[in-house]
């Protein structure tokens, strides 16, 4: 590769395989001094793997990394940090038991020499200075675990820039920030690039990408697609590059006849969460539920599914009044729930795709208590094919799947217990646009099969595009039931903001 002085970081031919699956295949990247270089791609495109290799957390199978003309391929985390690459981790890699200052300088106290004295007063002083420069108001001796998510993210940012890095990788740095804090971050980025620091910026938020980046590189399925100046791209072209095909229409229309009442909820209340909620869900209908954070949407779903107990009110399934005490009973009654928190309530990471899919319906595949491997595998394979789950094999561990495919595994699990009502709670949170389109198609298929669907979502276009009716909640109370004709983003927001 020609050593070009303009480029501070040059990556070529990078390949990395995880247990047989190619995460990166012959990927390249070239970053100039002082630019904001956006790295785009769907979840599972290989962005995170590429970044982990850059900072030395993973070693590539083959390929070349040059940083300021020097070879960096076999770097360890500390070498890489010393040379001047640092990263803002999406998962916010911080130690909850340590203080803000201790976290900011972790790994760099006295150059990390194990047997040397600490000077916390000095660390606190430096941290205070740094946070003040950033315009952030957090005391440096606060324990990390007392901070809000947004504050943690600011600390993660402080940690990355405190290193005097020449390249800073920012992986979804704004996911927990308010608009004001995003503005602060963008100000910091402007100062850094003016000093010649290069930023590699990863985000799913298109408006941010176009607001801040100079150059955009796109990855897809672990391969390099292209690099272009941001000014030459528009959103549609970029999405086409990322997805590999044009997404014709995210929300295909689907007209079905409304069937029987499947679920009816009367005067349901749970203290501090929701109050006097009454509604019905019908077969072959998507019932949307809108509301702001904390409006009580998830809490109602949890109560219907038997995860929480209502204080008062009644739940009727197929016209029969029932008392659901546990998710097991809910499943027996034909209720399925796809949680907003995939990782916590959705799947079991250690288990394979097959084991996760059949988890709720395992008894159907057992004779006299013994599992029938063939019938279990057949069921899993049907789901994998029907939902187009991309996995190396049914026995692959779920953790290696992309977010969208993990979500499909969870939905597949729910469908196998043949529900008559499916509650989807933020089913497309954190998944990319291609997988979103597939989930939307799936929701329409469920409805066409005569299943009653309750869709909880914070994305209004999604709710408007899929729902036949929309309930709006505000502070635990039902404020409106809107038909498709009445519902617009504005009307929904108006009812969602009501006291």
């Amino acid at each position, binding site marked *: 590769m020609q050593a070009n002085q303009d480029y501070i970081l040059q990556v070529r031919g990078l390949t990395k395989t995880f247990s047989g699956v190619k995460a990166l295949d012959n990927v390249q990247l070239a970053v100039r001094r002082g630019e904001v270089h956006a790295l785009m791609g769907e979840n599972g495109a290989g962005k995170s793997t590429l970044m982990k290799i850059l900072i030395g957390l993973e070693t590539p199978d083959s390929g070349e990394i040059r940083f300021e003309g020097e070879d960096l391929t076999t770097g360890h985390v500390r070498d890489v940090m010393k040379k001047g690459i640092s990263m803002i*981790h999406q998962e916010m890699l911080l130690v909850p038991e340590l203080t803000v200052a201790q976290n900011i300088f*972790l*790994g*760099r106290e*006295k150059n990390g020499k194990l047997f*040397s004295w600490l000077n916390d007063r000095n660390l606190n002083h430096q941290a205070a200075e740094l946070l003040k420069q950033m315009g952030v108001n957090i005391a440096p001796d606060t324990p990390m*675990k007392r901070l809000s998510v947004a504050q943690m993210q600011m600390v993660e940012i402080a940690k990355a820039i405190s290193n005097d890095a020449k390249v800073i990788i920012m992986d979804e740095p704004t996911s927990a920030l308010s608009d004001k804090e995003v503005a602060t971050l963008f100000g910091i980025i402007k100062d850094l690039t003016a000093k010649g620091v290069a930023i590699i910026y990863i985000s799913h938020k298109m408006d941010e990408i176009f607001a801040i980046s100079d150059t955009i590189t796109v990855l897809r399925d672990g391969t390099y697609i292209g690099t272009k100046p941001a000014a030459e791209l528009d959103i549609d072209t970029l999405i086409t590059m990322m997805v590999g095909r044009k997404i014709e229409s995210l929300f295909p229309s689907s007209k079905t006849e409304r069937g029987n009442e499947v679920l009816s909820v009367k005067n349901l209340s749970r203290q501090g969460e929701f109050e006097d909620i009454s509604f019905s869900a019908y077969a072959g209908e998507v019932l949307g539920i809108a509301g702001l954070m904390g409006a009580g949407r998830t809490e109602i779903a949890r109560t219907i599914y038997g995860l929480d107990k209502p204080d008062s009110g009644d739940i009727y399934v197929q016209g029969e009044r029932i008392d659901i005490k546990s998710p097991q009973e809910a499943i027996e009654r034909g209720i399925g729930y796809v949680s907003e928190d995939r990782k916590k309530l959705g799947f079991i990471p250690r288990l394979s795709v097959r084991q996760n899919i059949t988890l709720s319906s395992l008894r159907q595949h057992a004779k006299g208590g013994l599992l029938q491997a063939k019938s279990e595998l057949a069921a899993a394979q049907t789901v994998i094919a029907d939902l187009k789950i991309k996995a190396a094999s049914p026995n692959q561990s779920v953790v290696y799947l992309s977010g969208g495919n993990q979500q499909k595994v969870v939905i597949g699990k729910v469908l196998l217990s043949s529900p008559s009502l499916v509650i989807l709670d933020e089913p497309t949170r954190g998944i990319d646009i291609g997988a979103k389109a597939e989930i939307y198609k799936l929701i329409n298929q469920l409805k066409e099969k005569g299943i009653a669907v309750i869709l909880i979502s914070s994305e209004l276009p999604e709710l408007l595009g899929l729902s036949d009716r929309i309930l709006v909640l505000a502070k635990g109370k039902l404020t409106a039931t809107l038909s498709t004709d009445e519902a617009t983003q504005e009307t929904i927001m108006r009812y969602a903001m009501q006291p």
Partner: protein
Amino acid sequence: MENSYKERLRGLGKYGLFIAFFAICLTLTFLAPTFLTVQNLMIIVTQVSINALLAFGVTFVIITGGIDLSVGSIVAVTGIAAATFAHPDTYPVIVPIGMGLLAGLAFGAFNGFIITRSKVPPFIVTLGTMTVGRGLALILSKGRPISNLSDSFNFIGGGKILGVPTLILILIVTFIICSVILRKTVLGRYMYAVGGNEQAARASGIQLSTVKMVVYALSGGLAALAGILLTSRITTGQPNAGAGFELDAIAAAIIGGTSTSGGTGTMTGTLLGALLIGVISNGLDLLNVTSYYQQVVMGVIIIGAVVLDSLNQSTR
């Protein structure tokens, strides 16, 4: 309102141990007149000191999110190693001490080596080396106690300086050193980081394997110190010494507020935990409660301490 309640619970967790310790001491003072005498208190601290030394090492390990079950066996191996070189008119007293400490550090470093190189959990590795260690002690001593040790060696753990038992002096010095390591050195900070969030520690450029190696070696070294002192105090190298000590040491650390999930714990807490165990068994002795009941009481206290800790966790 809910917040202040949580704050209060958290506060209770923080000082609960101090409060419990002094409440028990106060109760015993009233119930058993001989409890609060200089002589009895010295007996308690002497009895506690061996366990406390082991518990300091185990605390380091548990803070990093690991566990060390082999310390009881290290006590035996290092005791035998020291006793072998401690006969009168053979080597100067520094040799048995050095051999014992070396054996312990090597044993601990071996634990650390296996744990960091393989992906086998520390529980399993140290369960294995616990058995290996016991076997080694029996092999080295040919299954027989080693007696006839020099007076200077027997002084280390059994003597007195200005009327204070050497064990107590060594305990105090070791406690201070361990506290300083934990609170004032980069190594100590890394222990909390590794146990608090291993991924974050790694991403911050900390070499996990080095920190873990050092921690297990430290635990081995402290167990060796305990082994040498115990051998000196009973003036015999016993291949069966220290059996079950690992559980008392872990109990002391846990009662002292070290979370088994890693990332928290202090030496002061562990010392207090060890003292609490000592005070209770001493008190129950003075009150003529049979040792059968003492075991039940100890078990209840261990579980109580962990329940308090988990209450503390859930209020975060």
